[in-house]
């Protein structure tokens, strides 16, 4: 479970990127964080995987206070997370295979097993035919799919995805969210930052609406199911 308690984040005075955000994401939830550009979606996701620290507040993941984990042990938290970055963050000098294999290499998975899992994962995102290509030779959408493959290759408990369909055509975006949905069905918690209304409308079980760093609305599965 991901719990956020009164999170405040300020990059530069006097603006607050996040203001008093409290949130509870249960295990197995499929969660959309949405809002206009600059509403704090990316900041919120970055705080959850501790790329940045909040100015105030606490984050607890599976009972562990994330802010109290020493820097030298933060890798242990991140091994349970799969992250899709808005800017993909691929290693452009390494092949698609190498990029996707990194989370498994980090875990010390044997080479044969790495090959098998990387190939299977790339098949899921329909990128297996470009396994030895360099990311610089791929289109924007293809790079995005490689980034998604890297995030899901080690079957993480939690997947955080920042605008994972931002550069994809509607059909492919739909496919990608279906993949996330499938992973969610297998038990992983998925949190997606997106402003794609169509996708949210179609897939959004739980939705958090942010505006200027504040939660302006929350909508849960129960609310939707209760709706006429």
């Amino acid at each position, binding site marked *: 479970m991901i719990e956020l308690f009164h999170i405040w984040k300020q990059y530069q005075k006097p603006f607050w990127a996040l203001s008093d955000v409290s949130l509870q994401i249960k295990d197995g939830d499929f969660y959309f964080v949405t809002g206009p550009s600059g509403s704090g979606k990316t900041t919120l996701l970055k705080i959850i995987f501790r790329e940045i*620290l909040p100015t105030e507040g606490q984050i607890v993941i599976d009972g562990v206070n994330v802010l109290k984990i020493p820097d030298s042990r933060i*890798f242990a*938290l991140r091994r349970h997370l799969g992250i899709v970055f808005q800017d993909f*963050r691929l*290693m452009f*000098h390494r092949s698609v295979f190498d990029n996707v294999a*990194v989370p498994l290499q980090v875990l010390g998975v*044997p*080479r044969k097993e790495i090959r098998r899992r990387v190939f299977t994962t790339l098949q899921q995102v329909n990128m297996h035919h470009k396994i030895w290509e360099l990311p610089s030779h791929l289109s924007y959408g293809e790079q995005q799919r490689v980034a998604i493959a890297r995030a899901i290759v080690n079957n993480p408990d939690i997947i955080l995805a920042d605008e994972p369909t931002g550069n994809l055509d509607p059909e492919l975006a739909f496919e990608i969210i279906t993949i996330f949905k499938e992973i969610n069905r297998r038990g992983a918690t998925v949190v997606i930052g997106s402003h794609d209304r169509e996708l949210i409308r179609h897939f959004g079980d739980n939705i958090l609406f942010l505006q200027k760093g504040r939660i302006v609305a929350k909508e849960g599965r129960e609310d939707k199911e209760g709706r006429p």
Partner: protein
Amino acid sequence: MIEKLKFFVRVAGLNLWHFRTRNIFSVTIICLSFLTVGIFLSLSNNLRHTARELQNNMTIAFFLDKGLPAGEVEKLEAEIRSPDFIESVRFVTPEEALERFRAGFPELEDIVSSLTDNPFPASIEARVRSKASRSGDIIGFVASLRSRPGITDVQFNQDWVEKMQAFSRMAGAIGFFLGGILILASFFIISNVIKLNVFARHNEIEILRLVGSTNLFIRIPFLIEGTVLGLLGSALSLGLLFVVLEAFPLYLGSSLGALQELLSFRYPSWPQIAGLLAAGAGIGFAGSLTSVSKFLKI
């Protein structure tokens, strides 16, 4: 363990190849820095060697009267050999002296061959032990023999040798100081080149951190790369140093005469070569270690 090591070496190898242009630049800078140190080392080696040679060659030449009977010469030889600080004594005939002059000054051959008479006197050359430190005793001994009948003149280069020794000590001290500065400057240049190399790849470090890599996992390939670059640079500098040491005397010719001996180079010794290689690897390793650490903070 071996599997992991293989993985790290493979990753380091891939990175070295992929960033080859940048790496060639780094190796060139490392090589040039070490070449400067190497040239300085060779010059300093030569100075030390020359000073040691001079110290070993401290001789006293006693020039004898023409026609001094052989018995007198033997007596003088025995007397000269007697002090502890004399290592060996040798009688030099006028003919041998003339031959030595011919060999030492070939450009004066015309004058020598026009001589009707051999102007060089016979002499007794005494070699002083290299460890002899009581210069007062030597000077007293020379003075006592200078007025002996049968000896016309005494040539003693102790004063010059002592000056050379002082010069060598001074050169050593300056060398230590300048060499120290040079090595320190090289260290900063090389470690900064390695740092620039790592800085250029901070995105990669960032990605590895965010997918849950330990600091050690991130560091190892960079450390291997830094060590290899440092080692390659220093090895290449030794190769270039060899070329310089071979080519420089050819470029210089023989125009500097006696000064040439002082300005010539001497190959670094095996321990010095090993030291340079180890320093290259060490600087590469340390440069990578410090620069990667900068990016490993949360």
